[in-house]
């Protein structure tokens, strides 16, 4: 039996430079960041202490309030998602290639990108001045945030649709509206529905955090009480359980 020769490893200088650059950036970040790494040693003990504080004796008397706030959070997320869907749905079609003029398309894509770059909390801070510290502010912030992601996923899904049915509809004399209805929509529906559900999930999660700036108040309990020590951490565990 002849000896097997292992083929030589392929050397790719581009890959190695990329690795070196990435390594340098990471090491640079570690080296320059101002962090008391020593505090890391205390973490395990602290985790156990806090878990004990939170779950050994949850404050069950807070449960009804926690449930009410959780419902408010979910309602906020729902309204935000529905509004986001209503706005983003037509915009997604306008942003897709082949259904609108290029300037409109690029304008909308830029808009989606800008919205996606700004965290929801900042959107909420901006519209806070109009609607005040109400759940409505949260819902609107989530709606605007949803337009950014749903719009992008939407036009990508529309562009990814199998061109066959579209061509068939066009060949049989369909107008643009008919092409959208019979060529695009039937194959894009599952994508759209899964995006909407996924975005709702994201909104439920972010609506819980919008309470930080006082919107909707689902977690005004946790961070404030924790960081200022004004309440028992156990008050918060019941609200997390329920969510």
């Amino acid at each position, binding site marked *: 039996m002849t000896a097997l020769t292992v083929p030589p490893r392929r050397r790719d200088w*581009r890959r190695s430079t*990329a690795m070196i650059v990435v390594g340098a*950036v*990471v090491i640079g*970040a*570690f080296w*320059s*960041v*101002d*962090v*008391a*790494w020593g*505090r*890391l040693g*205390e*973490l395990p003990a*602290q*985790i156990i202490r*806090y878990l004990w504080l939170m779950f050994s004796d949850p404050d069950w008397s807070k449960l009804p309030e926690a449930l009410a706030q959780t419902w*408010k959070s979910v*309602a*906020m997320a*729902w*309204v935000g998602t*529905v509004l986001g869907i209503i706005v983003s749905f037509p915009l997604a079609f306008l942003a897709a290639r082949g259904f609108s003029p290029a300037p409109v398309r690029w304008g909308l894509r830029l808009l989606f*990108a800008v919205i996606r*770059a*700004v*965290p929801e*909390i*900042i959107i909420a*801070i*901006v*519209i806070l*001045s*109009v*609607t*005040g510290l*109400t*759940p*409505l502010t949260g*819902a609107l912030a989530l709606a605007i945030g949803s337009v950014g992601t749903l719009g992008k996923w939407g036009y990508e899904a529309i562009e990814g649709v199998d061109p066959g*049915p579209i061509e068939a509809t066009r060949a*049989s*004399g*369909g107008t643009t509206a008919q092409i959208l209805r*019979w060529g695009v929509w*039937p194959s894009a529906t599952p994508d759209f529905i899964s995006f909407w559900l996924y975005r709702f999930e994201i909104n439920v*999660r*972010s609506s*819980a*955090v919008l309470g*930080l*700036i006082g919107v909707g108040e689902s*977690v005004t309990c*946790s*961070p404030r009480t*924790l*960081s200022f020590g004004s309440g028992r951490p156990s008050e918060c565990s019941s609200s*997390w359980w329920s969510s």
Partner: protein
Amino acid sequence: MAVSADDTTAVRPTPSAVTVPARPGGRWKSWCAVAVVVLITAITLSPQWGIDFSLVAIARNWQNGTDKILLLLVPDWGFFPRTVPALAETLQMAVIATAVAAAVSLPLSLATARLTNPNAITRGIARTVLNVVRSIPDLLYAAILVAMVGVGALPGIIALLLFNVGIIVKMVSESIEANDPGALEAGRAAGGTQLQINRSAALPDILPSFVNQTLYVLELNVRASSVLGLVGAGGLGLLIDAVRTFYRYDQLSLIIVEILIIVMALDVLSNAVRRRLV
């Protein structure tokens, strides 16, 4: 696919010759779904049960809002020097968290996929832990961690790390499951241990999706770490909280512009890398 009268018009034979087949049944199901959605929306919009969606408040305070938005349109460029350290900290937090998360996630994603970890017990444990980790939002982690290890970048980094591991492991282990098991079976047939199979057959397969997810997470981190400071976990958020309480909307808009530029630059960069990769 539904066939309607539109499809028949192009053919134009004598109309009586074409029989349009009956629409498939079961359409009432989608109408029911729509009705349920409308009902839930109505409940959530009602002042009594839901969030009190009143347009009156918007109409009343509209002036107030437009003033703020006008302020937002004119960023206070003089504020820039003060944002630089916070901006740098945000980026440092994002990079460190992404790097550590990537290192931790690779073995974990192999451990949570059925093809690379046939042991049901360890796989179940790993999956359960990760599901719990993923269900908690990053800001909540940051809030608790600030209480545990004190204010600064450290709680922010750990919060991002937990948040990232959840995402990367889920995505990558799904892509392992979606891969062709042939190579893994070949490895097993050649007598490799599970570790060897994972190393030489599974790893090369998942590397593109792994790098992809890591880039995506880096983008998420820049965005997330800019708000973690709201709970005291370092970065731009501390600054956002400060300018917010003083209603300095012109300074807030400068911060938004900075986040925008960085996120978009990262987007361009990661798109370029992705194109090379695929």
